[in-house]
């Protein structure tokens, strides 16, 4: 009896350790978007009704935990058919290099590029690796955007009027003056989720592009321009001037974005720096909130103000998936006009399909107008070394809390940059 039990146990162990056999009529999809899960599930049910293919959608929030799950699943080779990579382009490249992401170039090009033409080019760029890219990835498109987004400033019309300001500030000086006027009536100026460092990075790079232009920023990343350059000091000074004018909401440096959204929705702060995804959150928290969208006020009128944007969320297809064709077919269907209209109406996110733009709310339409001015680190030719970026962002926090001057921070960032460049040189 004992032997039989042992044999059964061994059998179960062997079966349990083997690769799960995939059902050819089921496509698995993992995502992190709690607010969109219901809409995704509804679309999956509709797809199953239309095609007989079941799409098993699993939600793993929040985004940080999802990122860890995806990396761990890649290491264990148990990725689903469709998933998202919420990380730097370098990580995206590593996934492709390791065969975890399928090349969708041919699928996008099929039928005279029908799929590619239907989607916003800026959104596709996030998933595109161009000829001669620094990651040595075969040029092509490796993912499909399911929505687009951009990050701009929002202003509360009622609070501005209460402070005697009749229109949104156009220049940086006007913005500082508005923040001071708001302070006088007991309202905080700008709120944003800078407890999540990438949001502060986004704001800082908006001004870096505006003050010195894209080429000089890229030259800095290549190590040809030091962070102690007067233009970079001017970028750091943006934060000092805002801190001196008390333009920030209290506690902005440790505030997560959800808190920042609440602060703006409940009219504790008159300005917010947030992405188009916030429209849904504000509607949920305060449906009567009267607000408008504006570009961050420029400092240098000679350079355009670029904002972060492009693909909001993208899905890729597992390169080792046994159901690759079904997964591609589902993604094509998912990004088609009707499904995108449904998603935009249900989740109040900007659709990735341009044909779906006609039926979206006014605030989202204002967001969409700036799509041509969007940029994103994933489409930049160069990216800063992550350790340098960390020092830079922590330095910005130091400036906001009055601990360090822009010059001190610039010196520290440059020191880390030189150290990392020397290390890279040594490795060569």
């Amino acid at each position, binding site marked *: 009896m004992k032997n039989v039990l042992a044999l059964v146990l061994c059998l179960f162990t062997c079966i349990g350790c083997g690769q799960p056999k995939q059902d050819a009529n089921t496509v698995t999809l993992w995502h992190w978007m709690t607010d969109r899960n219901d809409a995704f599930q509804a679309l999956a049910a509709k797809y199953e009704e239309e095609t007989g293919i079941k799409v098993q959608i699993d939600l793993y929030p929040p985004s940080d935990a999802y990122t*860890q799950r995806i990396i761990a699943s890649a290491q264990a080779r148990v990725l689903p058919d469709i998933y998202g990579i919420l990380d*730097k382009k370098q*990580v995206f490249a*590593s996934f492709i290099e390791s065969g975890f992401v399928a090349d969708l170039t041919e699928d996008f090009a099929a039928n005279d590029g029908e799929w590619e033409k239907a989607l916003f080019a800026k959104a596709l760029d996030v998933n595109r690796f161009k000829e001669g890219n620094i990651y040595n990835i075969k040029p092509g498109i490796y993912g499909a955007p399911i929505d687009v987004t951009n990050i701009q400033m929002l202003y509360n019309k009622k609070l501005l009027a209460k402070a005697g300001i009749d229109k949104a500030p156009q220049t940086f000086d006007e913005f500082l003056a508005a923040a001071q006027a708001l302070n006088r009536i007991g309202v905080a100026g700008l709120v944003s989720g800078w407890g*999540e460092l990438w949001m502060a990075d986004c704001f800082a790079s908006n001004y870096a592009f505006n003050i010195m232009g894209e080429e000089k920023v890229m030259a800095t990343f290549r190590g040809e321009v030091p962070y102690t350059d007067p233009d970079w000091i001017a970028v750091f000074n943006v934060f000092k001037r805002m801190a001196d004018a008390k333009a920030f909401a*209290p*506690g902005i440096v*440790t505030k997560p974005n959800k808190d920042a959204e609440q*602060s703006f929705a409940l*009219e504790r702060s008159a300005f917010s720096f947030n992405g188009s995804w916030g429209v849904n959150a504000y509607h949920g928290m305060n449906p009567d909130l009267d607000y408008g969208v504006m570009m961050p006020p420029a400092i240098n009128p000679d350079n355009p103000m670029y904002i972060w944007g492009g693909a909001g969320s993208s899905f890729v297809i597992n390169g080792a998936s046994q159901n690759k064709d079904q997964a591609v077919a589902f993604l094509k269907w998912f990004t088609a006009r009707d499904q995108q209209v449904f998603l935009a109406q249900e989740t109040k996110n900007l659709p990735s399909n341009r044909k779906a733009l006609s039926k979206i709310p006014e605030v989202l339409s204002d967001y969409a107008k700036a799509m041509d001015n969007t940029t994103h680190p994933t489409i930049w030719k160069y990216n800063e070394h992550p350790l340098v970026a960390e020092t830079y962002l922590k330095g910005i926090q130091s400036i906001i809390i009055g601990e360090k001057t822009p010059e001190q921070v610039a010196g520290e960032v440059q020191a880390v940059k030189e150290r990392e460049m020397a290390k890279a040189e040594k490795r060569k």
Partner: protein
Amino acid sequence: MPALTFKSSKLLRAQDSFTSFAFVLPALVIFSIFYVYPFFDIFNLSLHEWNGISFKRTFVGFDNFSELGVDKIWWKSVWNAMYITIMALTLQNALAFALALACDREIRMKNFYRVVFFLPPVLSEIVVGLIWRWILNAEMQAGEHIGLLNHWLVQSGLPHLVHEWLSDPETALTCIAVVHCWKGFGWGFIMLLAGLQTIDRQLYEAAKVDGANTLSTFWHVTLPMMVPVILVVVILTVLGSMQAFVLILSMVGQGLVYHTEVPVTRILASMQGVNRFGYACAQGVCFAGILICISIFFKMISDRAKQV
């Protein structure tokens, strides 16, 4: 015949050891798979430069460890964890001991107090962090402070003490340490209370007959009898506090500059922020070494205390 007896007793002994080994084997296998193998694998990874995804790992020897040795941010994070630990060892355990002593007496509603004091430890760290972030919020709405602490300070006539508690380097880490103590004192309370209840009541009666007052009874009876329990509480406090990080993430997100960094958040930053898994593993090995040294130190104290 004697030779045969000797042989059979040897066989019996071998059979005995085999049986014992067979009983230990499952635990040994599980321990090896889930503890020993990962430890050696992590050590092996710490000798490589690896981004955590790619198949390619570059052997760099002890480079990660030498870099760690001069990484000021890492050592600051170790100091920050020690600061939280020191606060927990003093504030948290003193509070736990005081409350355990109070509940050990015949007081009214002592069971109610026991439940109340044990509530914070059973709450999720994320929930505790979110509650305290609201309490310490520095924002205002319509001229009123939203954060409970600042609101209370204003109402109590102490508006000059109103502060951005979690955004000031002077107060952020202390706030986190205090919340950590609030969350953790219940464990110490339960263990110390259990320890107090094992002390023979006759010892107190004898001390009373001998004319000992409350303080000398505590000093000469309670404290010596509680030494083993106190040592266990201390070791658990040190290990728990050194590894605290969920509370930090939920209270200050990715941190206030480097003032709220602890070793675990640095390991996370190396893995997730800069994709240096090899370096993160070196940090993990170093941190494990620190914790092992601390545990050995307290084990030695514990052994000495037992001898005394």
